[in-house]
């Protein structure tokens, strides 16, 4: 008897039917967004000057959001081995960039360029008014890849120049 009461109070018993039905309120954040907001993955910074790091810095001035997404490229394979982000903005913007850093890991730079904002928005069930947040994340990925490729091209040019000189 006591255990049953305790279970009810604590709500810890799995598989129990809740005694009161949960009232669904309209316009809640989707649980995926809340998850990314409460447990953000890959928050942080890489060294901007690292030649294998690509930095994408984008902003949405209309709402004052700013998003930084960084990718770490493996020199040999050219694949993205690590990613991190820092976003100042609404929950949807934070979640979008968090999702983006998860999705780019282990992929090649060409592959991540195909990630569309609509996919991110769908994953997070973003309402229409927040679609631009996912767009921002897509732009951040593209900017990071662009930066990484520019750095790679620069490194290759320097190496070639060195070869010519020494050879």
């Amino acid at each position, binding site marked *: 008897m006591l255990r049953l009461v305790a279970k009810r109070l604590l709500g810890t018993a799995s598989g129990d039917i809740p005694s009161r039905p949960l009232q669904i309120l309209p316009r809640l954040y989707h649980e995926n967004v809340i998850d990314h907001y409460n447990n953000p993955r890959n928050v942080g910074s890489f060294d901007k000057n690292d030649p294998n790091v690509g930095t994408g*810095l*984008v902003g949405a001035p*209309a709402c004052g959001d700013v998003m930084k997404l960084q990718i770490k490229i493996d020199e040999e394979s050219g694949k993205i081995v690590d990613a991190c982000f820092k976003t*100042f903005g609404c929950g949807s913007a934070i979640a979008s960039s968090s999702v983006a850093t998860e999705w780019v890991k282990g992929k090649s730079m060409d592959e991540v360029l195909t990630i569309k904002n609509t996919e991110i928005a769908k994953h997070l069930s973003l309402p229409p008014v927040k679609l631009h947040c996912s767009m921002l994340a897509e732009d951040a990925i593209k900017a990071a890849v662009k930066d990484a490729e520019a750095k790679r091209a620069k490194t290759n040019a320097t190496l070639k120049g060195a070869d010519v000189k020494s050879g």
Partner: protein
Amino acid sequence: MYKMMQLWTPLSTVFRRVLPTTCCLASFTANSQFASLSSHLQSSSRVPLRYGLDFSPYSKISLLSFCSQSAAKLDSTTKRCWNCLAEATGSTPFLYCDSCRSIQPVDLSIDYFKIFGLEKKYEIEVDGLEGKYKDWQKKLHPDLVHSKSEKEREYAAEQSARVIDAYRTLSKPLSRAIYILRLEGVDVDEEQTVSDPELLTEIMEIREAVEEATDSQALNQVQSRMNEKLEETSDSFANAFQRRNLDEAVTCIQKMTYYQRASLCCSCNVIMGSTTLRIEEMITTDV
């Protein structure tokens, strides 16, 4: 209905307290329809327009369907009162007929600057706004027309709401800047991405400083720096707008938005910090 009630405090309260300085951007999106419709009206004033009504002044639908009845008259330059047919004097914006004391329907061709009797310039005397605003509300406020016809009560609701929005929009530099560009046909409030590395790096550093600030003194320092930047950029906007360099003007607005946002974050963090301290005090103090 709730939104309306939020908007219209009783007339007495309006005169007693200072209007809250909430961000005007939110209310302004509703008015984005005004300016485009107003410029449309100016160019096609001979087209008879239907008078549609929706009794929630901030509903976008009502703003779109709301057209000046006076524009339907053959002589579109002279406005006449719907009640007594007296002609508008032309010196003051025709929101109210002084002859018979009836409130007129909203005329979207009267922009916010005209409502306050100001030239359409970015730099205005902000101090003079409050007095004029109160003068208008003494004539237009819905509390004054309880005994009048439903039509006039609706006019009062919409005119009064428009004057409130005009006051809020013109009081703050950023909202005023966005509005004046909107009147020129430039819509700044688009959800576009920018990637100006210099600006974004600066903003990133500021926001990081705000997050990492340990005490309210540090936050206040950042905030005063932001307010300085806001003023500087406001001057740059005035300059760019005067030279009709609209691209530069848009960039200034984008910067101002970022600085204002950062300033707001400072205030929030100060409040949060002091609230945390108060809670800690309460917990540690023996009650």
